[in-house]
């Protein structure tokens, strides 16, 4: 069984490498410089994409080797600051991560206690359900103008947008987890004359913890999706702003680097919460 499993892992790894090589190969061929025999180019476009592309010898699309070089350049010096529009990618990621963690943390502080209340009280559940159902499907970016108008600070507004998109999965999962704690566990607490606070912390919280953690994992994933778009809107700092800025610079290599790093950070956030969820999961 073990050998079968490891051989499956090995074969999957080989297949992954093969797919990667194929993508890079096709990309390399597609972006190879071609002889300058193409039709005459619109001079406006030529001006936009730069001299190399205008002569037709090179596309604005970087080759895999260019990307590799760009990634390397960013990795060896991720935290440089050369003016407000030219900061290292590490700094930009740190800004985004900080906003996500702040907005997400505030949302957790708000959503988990409220979810507890909703889960414990059918009355509160029914009373709040219409609000949740209407607000949950709203794109968090739709809140941005309202946030900018009321808060009058773009940095705090983006944190608010992260807050509002992180709240729903945590709220709903906490309420569901708390509401579906097995009756017999609650009866154990009742027959032992355990007070409401001790029951909440010693019985309901551990029982609902896996469901709550699932909600947190969904929330942090959504928050990381939303921060890029939010920073594109508000500008200034952050990885979303970085992507938009590099689009204005038409530096595709930098954009691809950012995409890969956004994916990597998202993976780390998800795995971090998956690991935390494992700590509170119990087998029945």
């Amino acid at each position: 069984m073990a050998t079968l499993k490891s051989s499956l892992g090995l074969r999957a790894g080989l297949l992954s490498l093969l797919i990667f090589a194929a993508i890079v190969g096709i990309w390399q061929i597609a972006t190879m410089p071609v002889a300058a025999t193409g039709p005459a180019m619109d001079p406006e476009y030529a001006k936009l994409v730069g001299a190399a592309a205008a002569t037709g010898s090179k596309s604005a699309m970087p080759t895999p080797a260019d990307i590799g070089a760009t990634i390397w350049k960013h990795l060896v010096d991720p935290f440089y600051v050369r003016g407000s529009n030219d900061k290292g990618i590490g700094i930009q990621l740190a800004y985004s991560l900080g906003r996500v963690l702040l907005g997400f943390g505030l949302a957790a502080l708000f959503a988990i206690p409220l979810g507890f209340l909703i889960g414990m009280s059918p009355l509160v559940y029914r009373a709040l359900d219409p609000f949740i159902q209407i607000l949950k499907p709203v794109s968090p970016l739709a809140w941005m103008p309202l946030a900018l108008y009321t808060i009058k600070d773009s940095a705090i507004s983006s944190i608010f947008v992260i807050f509002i998109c992180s709240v729903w999965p945590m709220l709903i999962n906490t309420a569901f987890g708390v509401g579906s704690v097995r009756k017999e566990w609650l009866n154990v607490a009742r027959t032992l004359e355990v007070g409401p606070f001790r029951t909440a912390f010693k019985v309901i919280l551990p029982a609902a913890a896996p469901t709550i953690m699932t909600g947190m994992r969904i929330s942090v994933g959504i928050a990381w999706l939303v921060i890029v778009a939010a920073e594109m809107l508000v500008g200034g700092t952050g990885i979303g702003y970085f992507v938009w800025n590099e689009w204005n610079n038409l530096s595709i290599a930098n954009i691809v680097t950012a995409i890969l790093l956004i994916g990597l950070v998202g993976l780390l956030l998800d795995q971090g919460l998956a690991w935390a969820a494992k700590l509170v999961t119990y087998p029945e």
Partner: protein
Amino acid sequence: MDHRPLISVEGLGRRFGDSSQPAVFEDIWFGVDKGEFCCLIGHSGCGKTTILNVLAGLDSPSEGAVIVDNREIDGPSLDRAVIFQGHALLPWLTVMGNIAFAVSSRWPSWDKAKVQDHARRFIELVGLKGAENKRPAQLSGGMKQRVGIARALSIQPKMLLMDEPFSALDALTRGMLQDEVLRICADTNQTVFMITHDVDEAILLADKIVLMTNGPGAKIAEIVVNTMPRNERHRNDLHKHPQYYAIRNHLVEFLVNRSRAFDQEIAGKNYDPRRLKLVKPGLAAVNPPAEVVPLRHSN
């Protein structure tokens, strides 16, 4: 003499929904004396578990009351420990954690070392020494139920309430646990109220067997006194005891026929739910049965 048993069930009735619905059971009267092992036997759906839940304080009756120690119960109490049918262990805690949770609920001022020492005594009592740090998922069904028993005993309650505690176990494990419960109850002179539908289990464990008819409108038909002394009840040769088959046949006859047709049986006769027949089928060959003994003597 105003003698009231430790547990006195007085005129208990329970209906679900409004008063137009038929009662699951009504006018239930019986008592359990201190140190007595009392089994309630009846078919599924007659409300046995509801009666136990009322005794535990987890459910409230529609009519009547339960008096324990001369006080009407109005909620759960640490004096009445419950052993649940599905063991109801908290799966995120270890064996020690589960029992320590109960112990520290009973004695909130105890420090951790004292709680654990106390819990360890009861883990040893049920024969789970060495399994303290296991989680319920790592235990067999019988071991889980032992933890449930240890948890109930560890709070040193005035009485144990058991809801078909062994019904989910295989026959061998069930037998071993029955023996242990018998031993522990004898050692600690514990008062026990247990629900079962297993006739042999009732004969092995109970001093008194309360027979409940089928619902809706279930009643207590009569109370069978187990005239086999405790020290003569051994699981392996129970069937060799001279009284065994008389008691067993009486119980089986009740479950098979009389529990269904009890209303016809008492039609025209003076059945008084407050003055139930105490029957001793085990002595039937020796003494004439069916003496009427009042449950309570009022002044």
